[in-house]
């Protein structure tokens, strides 16, 4: 059982090694990288490739570690007690399982995605240390210990907004998704749009990497933006010649809105293109 990428996901060699190491040793895999390089998708693809269930836990700034384990719904218990409901006697009725519990409970070890862990409070990863390490936790209300039936495959993504604590990092495997080079990018495009014209891809990638090379862009376009743009190009049926065409009258690439997400970037790009035009040929 090895992860080797899927029909719809191109995994580089180093990524494969990292995923397989994490799966084999049952350690969490921490994924970082530029936005739009397919961090979250990876978990889905690993789940598909290995035939496991995916449990996604999307972390927000208000998410607490406890919510991943379980929550005690005291409010509905209070209501039930006032209505004289019989089930109020058993506190277990008011324990709501969290994503981690769900993953621990599964009969086949699932893939658990903890998405954007850096969004949460700084203490969040620390609070999950033991739970992720031992794959067990204790429910105080019912005095039971929940143990994982199988070690889940845990994939954690981070956008680098906060530093993660060392103790947490030590327990993970780490992979930084590099921005794909042209060759890999061509493979990625081929996987997503199998029927696409080769010359369109070639021209589009040239334009794309040119845009990425512009100094001072606030947000560089990434893989997901390239894919969107290509989709648009195909939908509008734009000929490859239009992209190749260095016609000075057309300053910026067609449908640039898919690549540049910021009006300052568009302005900057227009200015640069304008300067280029004035250069004597």
């Amino acid at each position: 059982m090895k992860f080797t990428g899927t029909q719809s996901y191109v995994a580089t060699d180093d990524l494969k090694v990292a995923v397989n190491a994490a799966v084999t040793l049952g350690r969490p895999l921490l994924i970082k990288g530029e936005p739009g390089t397919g961090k979250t998708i990876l978990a889905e693809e690993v789940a598909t490739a290995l035939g496991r269930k995916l449990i996604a836990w999307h972390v927000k700034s208000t998410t607490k570690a406890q919510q991943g384990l379980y929550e005690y719904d005291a409010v509905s218990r209070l209501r039930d007690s006032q209505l004289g409901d019989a089930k109020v006697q058993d506190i277990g009725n008011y324990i709501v399982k969290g994503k981690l519990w769900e993953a621990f409970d599964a009969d086949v070890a699932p893939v658990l995605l903890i998405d954007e862990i850096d969004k949460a409070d700084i203490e969040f990863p620390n609070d999950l240390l033991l739970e992720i390490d031992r794959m067990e936790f204790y429910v105080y209300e019912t005095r039971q210990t929940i143990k994982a039936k199988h070690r889940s495959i845990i994939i954690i993504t981070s956008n680098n907004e906060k530093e993660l604590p060392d103790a947490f990092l030590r327990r993970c495997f780490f992979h930084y998704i590099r921005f794909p080079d042209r060759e890999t990018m061509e493979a990625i495009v081929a996987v997503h749009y199998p029927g696409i014209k080769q010359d369109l891809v070639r021209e589009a990638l040239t334009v794309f990497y040119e845009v990425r090379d512009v100094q001072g862009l606030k947000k560089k376009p990434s893989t997901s933006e390239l894919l969107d743009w290509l989709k648009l190009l195909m939908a509008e049926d734009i000929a490859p010649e239009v992209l190749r065409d260095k016609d000075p009258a057309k300053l910026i690439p067609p449908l640039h809105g898919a690549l540049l997400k910021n009006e300052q970037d568009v302005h900057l790009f227009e200015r640069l293109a304008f300067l280029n035009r004035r250069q004597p040929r």
Partner: protein
Amino acid sequence: MFIDFFLRLRAAGIPVSLREFLTLQAAMQAGLAEYEIENFYYLARAALVKDERFLDRFDQVFGECFKGLVSEGAGEDPAAPVELPDEWLKKLAEKYLTEEEKSQIQALGGWDKLMETLRQRLEEQQGRHQGGSKWIGTAGTSPFGAYGYNPEGVRIGQHESRHRKAVKVWDKREFKNLAGDVELGTRNIKVALRRLRRFAREGAASELDMAGTIGATARNAGYLDLKMVPERHNAVKVLLCLDIGGSMDDHVRLCEELFSAVRSEFKHLEQVYFHNCPYDKMWRDASFRPVHAVPVMDLIHKYDPSWKLIFVGDASMSPYELKQPGGAISDWNQESGEVWLKRLTDAYPKAVWLNPVPEPYWRSTMSIGLVEQAMEGRMFPLTLDGLDRAMHRLMR
């Protein structure tokens, strides 16, 4: 050998712990490296490095260790031909060769002949590779390099792309711009400045904790139990002094990035500008018009010592500008820059100076040393590392 690798990583300042080292060993035992150097590199990287800032350093250390491995076999003289472990190659080739290719080998004169040719080739290769390259014939001396090499049409290994990629992966140093000691972009700097954010719940209780109250009331079987929490607010106040103009022009762009990053991080942020060195006046605006001038004494009175003072400047000037009354280049100053600097650092115990000039060059400019002295050593380079250190210093 692995222990040595581990120690070298630690010596290079990569925070690897024993636990991670054992993880790597466990992974190796599980056969994850598949006895291929490239996979071993990826595996070691995933297991030992946990921050992209250290990836570049890791690549360097890995390279060094790998080279060490090679020269062990080569003895004292790195140019000496290396004894290739025949069994190693044989085993590997047997694994990949088809029957047809094996018979071809026989046609060439058998294994011994092939190995002979291979050695010759490798020596030639080495000759060409010597000189500037750190990798004295990567493909030549290393038994692993032979893997990517293609003698006599016999391909040891897999398909072509391997040859192009082998060994080189860590030598390319693709993560160079993620290393902690390069200059910053807006994004890096935001990460570091977040250190300054202190979402401290401090002071008196001032807010009704709705969730807490409901929870406590429910636990109390319906008797109301009010809970209060202190209000959450950003306690960090920053007075930012930016050096604009003159020798700073090179660094203006970087400063602007720092500045734009800072702006979104703090609620209380004041910035003033100065030229080369703070004297009795600073300016609210980078145009240095007299209308925007503020006496430094007013600043000191207005902002209490709980403010954190951050200078951004290259501190490169003539020593007179710092030492001599009247030494300023733009105005007449009654007291020397050093006196004003002292006054400011006395007023604000939490102060740092961020210098865009790379740290190794500090010794070559006298005034940088003087300012550093005046700041009692609290000068940090404007890199992610330097910023981290500066923020730590401010939070102490």
